[in-house]
């Protein structure tokens, strides 16, 4: 019985992984993505460990197959950033409200925005680090990378505020209704 439920759980996570990869690898406007949302949801449903694993794996695959090209040396930073989103999803699991109030939607939207900022900070820092290795002075490297990434960060943060605010809670609740998740999630 235990083995069968584990198989069902793995199958569900695999479906979510495939869905997430399909969305991530589909050509789309820069920095509009659903990986953060799905990683957060996986963390919130299956726990921090699974969230970190899920986020890291998606970014690993994305690093090679992204429509925006090979991630290269920034890949570990992307994996760490997305792993963090999964980790926070798992930590947030215990704080999710059962009631669908405006406040709870705003709350998760703010959290989505914050996680996106942290993710952008980590990945931009990764880019700046490799610019520094190439001989650019640290302060200048950080300033130029963060400054040139500002318009992209804006799109990223706002799109994630919207997706987290609107989709994450209903999705977590829907997934929690699946028997195997209810029992072992």
């Amino acid at each position, binding site marked *: 019985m235990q083995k069968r439920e584990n198989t069902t759980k793995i199958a569900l996570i695999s479906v979510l992984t495939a869905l997430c990869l399909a969305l991530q690898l589909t050509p789309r406007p820069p920095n509009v993505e659903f990986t953060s949302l799905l990683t957060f949801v996986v963390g919130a449903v299956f726990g921090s460990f699974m969230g970190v694993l899920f986020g890291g794996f998606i970014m690993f695959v994305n690093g090679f197959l992204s429509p925006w090209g090979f991630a290269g040396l920034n890949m570990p930073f992307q994996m760490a950033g997305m792993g963090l989103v999964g980790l926070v999803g798992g930590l947030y699991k215990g*704080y999710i409200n059962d009631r669908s109030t405006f*406040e709870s939607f*705003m*709350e998760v939207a*703010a*959290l989505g*925005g*914050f996680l*996106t*900022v942290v993710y*952008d*900070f980590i990945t931009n820092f990764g880019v700046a680090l490799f610019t520094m290795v190439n001989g650019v002075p640290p302060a200048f490297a950080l*300033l*130029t990378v*963060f*400054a*040139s*990434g*500002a*318009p992209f*960060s*804006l799109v990223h*943060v706002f799109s994630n*505020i919207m997706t987290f605010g609107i989709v994450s809670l209903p999705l977590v609740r829907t997934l929690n209704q699946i028997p195997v998740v209810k029992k072992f999630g």
Partner: protein
Amino acid sequence: MVEKRTLTFATLAVIVWAFLATSFAAYYYMQQLMVKNQLDEKQQLLTELAENYEGSVAKRNLLFAEYGALLGEYQWFQGENYSSLMGTYAGLLSNLKGNYTFILNEFPELNTTYNNLLNRFQEFSEKSEVTKEEFGSLLEDFYKLFTALSSKELDTTIGKASRIQVSLCINYTKLGGTVEWHNVSISSYATLFDLTREVANITYEYWATMEPGHIIITSINNQTTWWLWYYWDEAINDWIWGPVGCDAWTLKNNGIYKWDVYP
């Protein structure tokens, strides 16, 4: 009393806002810096352009005055033998070389024209008598070269500030090769000869009697044959055979040119 949880998420929202605001302040600063640098570069270029232009015009006017004085002497000359004017002509020729050394070194076709003129001058100098026609032809050729050099110098000066995009096709298919395309950004004063020299190894012949343009390309990238040039006429959508020597054809922005084997 505000709930602790609400306060936490409000703080997160403020952090998000602060991050975006700081990033945009940095973005704005960088953009301003970039625009300022670009403006400074343009300003410097403009100043250089104005200085070079003034220098070129002053030089041209000085030489033109010398040439005008000699032309006047020639026209009012009463005798049959013009060899007494050859000394002044030698000075004029020497001044021309001194003032346009850079252009003569940069553009081999003009350098060849200069050397041909110098040879003719030396040939006439060795004669005891120089006729009116002979000296007249020297003056005429000097004027042509002088105007070519001065306009080339002005073009070069202005060309630093403006560049054009052109495409050059070299068709080797009749030699068993392929068609080669070169999309090039080049100074707006450049001729087809300059462009061809930039993208390929060439050899050429100088034909003094051929005008306008004295150059005939004899080989491109070690392919020796009869090379003819064409330009693409957008009005009729067809290649038009080059009507002048390639060194006399100034390129236009987005122009398309071709070297092809004849026949």
